[in-house]
């Protein structure tokens, strides 16, 4: 690409410059020819594809979405059966991908921060173990780790009949983790409402406290009061509603537990594999972020009489986060994309469901296009959100 952008000298040249030596015109020509080549290539591929599909009598179009899927899916957030459509099956897949990515990202950030801090610990043993952890988990392919965890899960844990029962209502088996949840009760709705109104209240309180501090310099114990509101409102609502304590306890019936909530080994193995792998990278990101804030900053803050919580909140974090957020975003995206490896250990994520759909319908083109669109959508939304967040905290700068 030797001819790119040369507009600076264009004005000073005499009129009689030949057409092919005028950088501006040359740039247009160059772009036109590039577009032409891309266009022709696209046209060529599309005509080939259409001809192939036609010749081999392969079905096309999205019509299959309306048809009955007639395959079962192991776990689903919404009700689904083999009698539902392909569209619903794919939706189940999307939701499964979302839940594993969402939970995975949260756990990764927590674990990664923890290990990153441990890596900087003054305790030799802890810092060494963190270093070994980071090296080992970074350097083994995540797919291999997934195979490994999954094997560990079903090989070590007992069958439902001999379930491991650490505390009442919680059972660990090779069918997954089963635990009791409160039985459905109308009060739950009100408790949720109370919690959300608590959130709104806390948000308003924080704004008010900040403004008051800016005006008067007086501090308000925001953290303690917020915690009180967030916990207190739901508890009071629960008590007013008659304090329902009935629990939906899982009971062994037939082949497996009925009732309660069951978290499958596939989900857990996938989550574990993704979190342990990505956390190693996040730990490095966090370490670099913390080290980027010079020790002088902490000392300066101390000499100003800030408490350690305030130092972390007001001095270190705002500066470290700016270094941490961009690489952290790409790690989050990696985790989301790596969740597509679920197909190897039998968690019904989107790629897995779409793969089965491709097999049943034979429409590979549509299936793979859908996979790409869905992941692209996830990636773009996540990075858009993180960019927004990054900008927001960058404002703190100056």
């Amino acid at each position, binding site marked *: 690409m030797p001819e790119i952008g040369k507009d600076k000298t264009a004005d000073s040249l005499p009129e009689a410059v030949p057409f092919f030596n005028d950088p501006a015109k040359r740039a247009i020509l160059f772009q036109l020819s590039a577009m032409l080549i891309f266009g022709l290539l696209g046209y060529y591929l599309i005509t080939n594809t259409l001809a192939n599909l036609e010749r081999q009598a392969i079905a096309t179009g999205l019509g299959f979405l309306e048809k009955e899927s007639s395959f079962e899916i*192991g776990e689903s957030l919404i009700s689904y059966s083999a009698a539902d459509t392909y569209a619903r099956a794919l939706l189940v897949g999307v939701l499964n991908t979302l839940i594993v990515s969402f939970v995975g990202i949260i756990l990764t950030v927590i674990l990664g921060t923890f290990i990153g801090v441990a890596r900087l610990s003054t305790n030799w043993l802890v810092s060494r173990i963190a270093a070994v952890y980071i090296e080992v988990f970074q350097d083994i392919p995540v797919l291999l780790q997934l*195979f490994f965890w999954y094997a560990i899960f079903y090989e070590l844990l007992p069958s439902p009949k001999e379930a491991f029962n650490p505390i009442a209502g919680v059972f660990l088996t090779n069918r997954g983790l089963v635990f009791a949840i409160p039985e459905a009760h109308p009060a739950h709705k009100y408790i949720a409402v109370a919690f959300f109104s608590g959130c709104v209240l806390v948000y308003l309180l924080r704004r008010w406290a900040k403004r008051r501090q800016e005006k008067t310099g007086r501090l308000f114990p925001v953290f303690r009061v917020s915690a009180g509101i967030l916990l207190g409102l739901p508890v009071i609502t629960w008590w007013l509603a008659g304090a329902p304590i009935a629990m939906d306890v899982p009971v062994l019936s037939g082949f497996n537990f009925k009732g309660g909530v069951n978290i499958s*080994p596939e989900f857990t193995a996938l989550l574990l594999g993704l979190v342990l792998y990505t956390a190693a990278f996040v730990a490095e990101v966090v370490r670099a972020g913390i080290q980027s804030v010079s020790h002088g900053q902490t000392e300066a803050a101390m000499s100003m009489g800030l408490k350690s919580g305030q130092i972390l909140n007001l001095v270190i974090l705002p500066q470290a986060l700016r270094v941490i957020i961009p690489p952290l975003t790409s790690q989050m995206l990696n985790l989301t994309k790596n969740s597509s490896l679920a197909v190897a250990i039998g968690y019904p994520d989107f790629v897995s469901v779409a793969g089965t759909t491709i*097999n049943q319908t*034979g429409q590979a083109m549509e299936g793979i296009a859908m996979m790409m669109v869905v992941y692209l959508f996830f990636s773009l939304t996540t990075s858009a959100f993180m960019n927004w967040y990054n900008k927001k905290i960058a404002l703190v700068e100056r």
Partner: protein
Amino acid sequence: MKHLKVSLVAVLAVVMATAGMAVAGTLDDVRAKGFIQAGVNGDLFGFGKPDEKGVWKGLDVDTARAIAAAVFGDANKVKFIPLTAKTRFTALQSGEIDVLTRNCTQTLGRDTALGLDFCQVNYYDGQGFLVPKKLGVKSAKELDGAAVCVLPGTTTELNLADYFRANGMKMKPVVIENTAELAKAFFAGRCDVLTSDASQLASTRSVAPNPKAYIILPEVISKEPLAPAVRHGDNQWKDIVNYSVLAMINAEEKGITSKNVDNMLKSTDPKIQRFLGVSPGNGKALGLDEKFVYNIIKQVGNYGEVFERNVGVNTTLGIERGLNALWTNGGLMYSPPFK
């Protein structure tokens, strides 16, 4: 930048050079290449799997070798391409392989919507259930609420869902892409039941830590005719694949084996003479060498030999002939006359 352009051109040239051309009929094409490309399973012991030296073994593998023997007179002129359940049909559609011998169930849907044709069935199978004895289950009807291990993207998955729906039962599928991983999960108790084609159940049970602790339930819930497949519309090639498989069956009917085939050449029976190409006609009609049947039997064996060698009672799998016995023995294997 010039280097870049040069290297890009070079890469393109390499791609073009390695890209095979296959516009003529499959037979001409295969002859020009000098070998057959066959799509196989790769993970299925007894049907298509490499041994520790990387040599392919199995019933499907031998079927492909029989076709090579028919076309080239040399059973080794075949290249095996391992395919997953997902990639198998596209590989055939695109011409990457010439024949698909990968324990594929023939169904109307696949025959019509995927641009391929199925040939003579080389193994009649049916889907069943494998359960641990200690579960105390005697019939598939008692499986309500069970967790079921199943391979994804296969007819098996559909049959399973259909069966449970038809009987008003619920189940939880555990869907794992890899056969070995699936079997391991089942033995470790991840699921109560393993469902698959009966042949695979036998193979899975044989590798269990304690094979006696597992039983195969009596219900067979589907018909699974496993057949080689070729691209739609190439009738000559389809005939060749068809009659290569049938030749092995016919040879067993006539008692011709790889050991006695040389003696049989001297037979005075006109049917055998015609069959083995001593009196010409069959080969020419298919566009093959007159001795194609002789080559198949000599180098690969008759159907019975192939069956016993790969999956029969004396192998690890220990599968009875059952439906795959000759029609004269109560099975379904039946060859039209070679005349």
